[in-house]
């Protein structure tokens, strides 16, 4: 089926080459980082993880969100998702590939990455995270490719795929739960030491991922002959709305616990992120953009009359996605490191090379997504 990705319009190829150019630039920048070390990033001994790990965390959520299509379609026989469930599975594949790459570019000794498998360490959450992520990638590759192949031939998918599909449901939950455990099991980082970390990760994932999927479905409709349909998009919009309310609710819980208990260590990261501390306030504007976008998107989503207008829905989805991207892809990681272990403040801001490498990983993900969607759409156009 991959041959479908090798024939396309001029616009398709222009897009591919733009992505390749970005990737090329990022590869060169990465070589610089490889040679000179992670010192070319904004990271420090106090803020030892930053944009890379933040993006990894955020994208695990995007990957897990495919389950929001799989559950209604396969468990509740919600037929309307039949047309777009493949878009969700392929989005998951591209997201997991980006996750793996973000981990890779964050390593100090990337050539030793196989040590994680050579010396399996059962007490390390990072070992389990790599196991569940690779497993999830495999599941979605097999499921997506087999079901699409069957559709192309006009036959039912083989029976052996069904158990894999059912397995992918708890597996999706596991990837984001285990990723939350990377943070929530660490002593001494108050911002992360919270039992609602995993639930909040799942809520924000089930809001952010499907909101991206709505935008992708609208793009697919605009640029190809394949129409995912208005109804599945509206159904997704409802999922996004509920999940985002759950996410904002859980964030509210964090604020309450920190400020009503009045424990300094618990309040400090929130102070730093939303108000600044001792004159350090690099993240404050971003966190407020995130908060305002979260509320604004909810206002647009909660009223059915607004939500049903796809233009308004698109605006709401862009705001919601941006809000979560800031909150989880950036603020979450930095808030764990500031203030540092000595209650001092070292700020973090990504450097230009760091931003280019990050952009490059996204470009690889978008390239994979473009190719996979091209295949899916071509099959649909063929069988339609």
């Amino acid at each position, binding site marked *: 089926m991959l041959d479908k990705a090798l024939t396309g319009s001029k616009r398709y190829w222009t897009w591919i080459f733009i992505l390749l150019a970005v990737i090329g630039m990022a590869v060169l920048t990465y070589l610089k980082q490889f040679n000179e070390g992670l010192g070319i990033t904004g990271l420090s001994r106090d803020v030892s993880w930053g944009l890379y790990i933040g993006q990894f965390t955020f994208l695990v959520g995007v990957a897990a969100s495919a389950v929001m299509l799989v559950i209604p379609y396969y468990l509740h026989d919600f037929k309307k998702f039949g047309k777009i469930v493949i878009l969700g599975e392929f989005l998951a594949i591209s997201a997991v590939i980006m996750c793996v790459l973000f981990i890779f570019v964050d390593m100090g000794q990337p050539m030793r990455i196989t040590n994680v498998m050579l*010396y399996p360490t059962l007490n390390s959450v990072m070992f389990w995270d790599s196991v569940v992520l690779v497993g999830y990638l495999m599941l979605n590759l097999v499921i997506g490719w087999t079901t699409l192949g069957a559709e192309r031939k006009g036959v039912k998918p083989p029976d052996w795929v069904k158990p894999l599909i059912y397995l992918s449901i708890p597996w999706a939950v596991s990837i984001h739960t285990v990723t939350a455990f990377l943070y929530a099991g660490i002593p001494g980082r108050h911002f992360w030491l919270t039992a609602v970390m995993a639930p909040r990760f799942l809520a924000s994932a089930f809001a952010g991922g499907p909101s991206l999927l709505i935008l992708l479905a609208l793009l697919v409709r605009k640029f190809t002959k394949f129409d995912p349909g208005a109804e599945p998009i509206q159904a997704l919009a409802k999922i996004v709305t509920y999940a985002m309310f759950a996410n904002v609710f859980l964030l509210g819980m964090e604020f309450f616990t920190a400020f009503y208990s009045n424990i300094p260590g618990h309040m400090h990261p929130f102070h730093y992120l939303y108000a600044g501390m001792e004159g350090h306030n690099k993240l404050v504007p971003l966190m407020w953009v995130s908060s305002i976008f979260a509320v604004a998107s909810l206002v647009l989503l909660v009223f059915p009359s607004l939500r049903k207008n796809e233009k308004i829905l698109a605006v709401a989805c862009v705001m919601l996605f941006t809000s979560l991207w800031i909150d989880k892809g950036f603020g979450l990681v930095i808030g764990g490191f500031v203030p540092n272990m000595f209650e001092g403040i070292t700020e973090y801001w990504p450097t230009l090379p760091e931003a280019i490498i990050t952009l490059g990983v996204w470009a690889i993900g978008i390239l994979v997504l473009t190719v996979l969607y091209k295949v899916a759409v071509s099959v649909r156009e063929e069988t339609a």
Partner: protein
Amino acid sequence: MSINRRQFLKLVGASTVAGIGGTAVFNGLRNNGLEAAQTSPDPRSLKGTGTVTRWGFVVDMSKLNPEDYQKCIDACHSIHNVPDMSGLPEEVRKRQEVKWIWKDNFERTFPTAPEDVYQNIELKEKNFFLFCNHCAKPACVRVCPTKATFKRNDGVVMQDMHRCIGCRFCMAACPFGARSFNWRDPRGKDDKGQPFIKPEKENKEYPTRMIGVVEKCTLCTERLAVGKIPACAEVSNGAIVFGDLEDPNSEVRKIIASKYTIRRKPELGTQPSIYYVIGGGEHAG
């Protein structure tokens, strides 16, 4: 028991498979494969008296003259080839420096200690040595995905620089900021072309590290192995006392038993092996 040729071959085949695959699996499950560091005991090496050894420090800063601080730091950093980053711009150095032992005030050493604005000013302004706490339940060891950081039988939390993948999970996990990452090549040069480790000062007896790995205080395992106490303790005029915390007759235990000592962030349950004598030695006894 007599067996024929065919049975014999089957038995041999089965035991070979079980032997090769089976041992690997069982070793993996029982987790008793090769440790990252295998040491052959030297007869001179320091040993605890009991069956269990737990090396640790008691730090009494009142015993140290202000001009001696740097002596302890230099003793450690010079023999361990810790890169000297003083040639970097101050802001960069602070963010990227490697340090195994350093000093800081009470507030930053014990950020969760019950101090307040009315506290004794002398204590507040006093400097304390900070190093790896060699915790009994180290969070860094728990999170390391490759066992590159591990706990030795004598209580030392150790690092294998050749196995470390540089994921920095241990840096996120350590509540004491004890871990340094090699953001730059420690064998390289700073922006002005000055080497971080001066060739004439390099200790050829101790390995330099490479870019992209995490390092920290090792409690001078290389010195313990030949019967010497850690370098900082040796030059500290008695401010840093080294000994076996499991041995009730050791000097460290005697001080802990007789004076008021505190540890950094004990509430986190990592059980640091570094104790600090608080309140100016004599009248606290």
